[in-house]
């Protein structure tokens, strides 16, 4: 019997019904991710990255193909595949701690009240947000909101952490700080991560593998690059390493030479 990876997408095709037919977003995607791997998914807007992530999350059902996680078939959303949304999606009427607690109550029902509360605070401390536990989302900055979003996701103890362009809406400096948080967390928790990004540096810095997608419709995986850089990675040390530059170059060539942005082609 053939070996199946921790997270395996096999022939995943996603089509959406549109006026007068179907729109094929993803065409026969095969992707295998091992446990503890950090995979970045990069491609131009509209290439179906989010659709792929939603399919793994179970929010979108593939029209063909199967997604396996630890050998089980994914057919619905669940807290074992926690999602960090681009718009953070914190509930504005709950405090920071209550937002995380909502996820903890759902995933750790067998634990006592005190244990759950401690777990909430522990996860907030991991993202350095314990000090704002009683604040509402409207009272904290965008970067802080996303930290809480990450805390909520990792507090679910997910088997895979899915991140949908988590830092897309943040300024460059805040983004760098959050990238460091994610790197630190991944080193500590050895989580399996699938992250969508638009940012070449972010992909190369954070990921073990950069999966590049062709332009949609009917997007496929164009190239699968292994980023062979030592960990822990420090931003300042990386920029001088030749391997970093090569990986960066490869991704940029893919995005701007082989599969140019359809929007700029038209221009």
């Amino acid at each position: 019997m053939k070996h199946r990876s921790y997270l395996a997408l096999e022939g995943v095709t996603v089509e959406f019904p549109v006026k007068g037919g179907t729109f094929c977003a993803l065409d026969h995607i095969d992707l295998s991710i091992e446990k503890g791997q950090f995979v970045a998914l990069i491609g131009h807007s509209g290439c179906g990255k989010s659709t792929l992530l939603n399919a793994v999350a179970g929010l979108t059902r593939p029209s063909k193909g199967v997604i396996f996680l630890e050998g089980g078939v994914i057919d619905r959303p669940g807290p074992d595949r926690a999602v960090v949304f681009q718009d953070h999606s914190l509930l504005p009427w709950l405090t920071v701690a209550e937002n995380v607690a909502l996820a903890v109550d759902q995933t750790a029902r067998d634990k006592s009240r005190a244990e759950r509360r401690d777990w909430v605070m522990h996860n907030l401390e991991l993202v350095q947000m314990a000090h704002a536990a009683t604040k509402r989302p409207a009272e904290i900055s965008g970067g802080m909101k996303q930290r809480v979003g990450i805390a909520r996701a990792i507090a679910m103890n997910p088997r895979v952490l899915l991140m949908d362009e988590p830092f897309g809406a943040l300024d460059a400096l805040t983004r760098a700080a959050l990238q460091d948080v994610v790197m630190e967390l991944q080193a500590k928790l050895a989580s399996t991560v699938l992250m969508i990004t638009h940012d070449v540096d972010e992909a190369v810095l954070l990921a073990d593998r950069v999966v590049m997608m062709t332009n949609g419709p009917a997007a496929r995986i164009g190239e699968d690059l292994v980023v062979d850089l030592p960990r822990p990675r420090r931003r300042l040390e990386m920029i001088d390493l030749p391997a970093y530059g090569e990986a960066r170059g490869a991704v940029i060539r893919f995005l701007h030479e082989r599969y140019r942005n359809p929007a700029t082609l038209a221009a």
Partner: protein
Amino acid sequence: MSTPATHAVRTPPAAAQPDSGPAATSESAIVLDYPKAAIVRSSLPPVAARENAVLAGFKSLTSAVLPTLLMLFALLAFWQMACASPTSPLPGPMRVWEEAHDVIMHPLKGVTLDLHGLHIEGQGDVGVAAHILKSLGRVLMGYGLAAVVGVLLGMLVGTNRHAYRALDPLFQVLRTVPPLAWLPISLAVFQQVQPSAIFLIFITAIWPIILNTSAGVQNLPASYRNVGRVLALNPIQYFVRIVLPATVPHIFTGLRIGVGMSWLAIVAAEMVQGGTGIGFFIWDSYNSSLLSDTIVALVWIGMTGFALDRIVAGIGRLVARA
């Protein structure tokens, strides 16, 4: 405040020692001295002593209320001048004050408060506040009923697609029917003043409550829905923990519009039906050619409507914060 000074001390030598050889330091590399003014200003002017808290509060209140009071005074003055002639059909404010002195000064005539609660004399000559209370009682019943039924129906229509398709067109048609158009039907069915007035309030207030509630449920952001799905909340948890709190602001928008419309409808209904209530008071004073009394009643109605709106808005804020 010592940092600028140390900088200023340290900078001149750095600028004076061009150690990069004969190539003179370029214009842009010359380090300028820290501006003297910045060093001299080493202390800020002392902050003025804290004002007395009560006095400060009084001041801010005055600045908020004073423009309104001035405007009110100007309008009253204009009204007085316009209606100064004794033959003017509309009494000026001075005449209102003289003619309706009794009504203004004794609003609670006929109202007694004891251990069993509030009692309003059923018949005869009662004060304007007594009429207001009577009307408020009716509004409270009709509006309370509308709030409960309206929120429940709105939730149903908002969450269930079939219910939406079945009911929404009916709501859209019925909500345009003016409150008074329901009066004949209401009177015919209920036969009595009290229940028919309550029904009228109910049927007036319910539409904005239903429509706003259902719109709130339908416009639930997709991201909240996804959070619920990823957390695998069951339908009841999803409703209680996500749909309901997310809809509260919309519900209270509906409730606020509803209470305003009820107050509009009650006056009209009571004018037509007679008996008691502020609407009846207005009609009665008009029939007795006591226009001054009517004007006093208008002020009472306005203040009460304003208070109702503020109370509902205040409750909405409280609920949203909880």
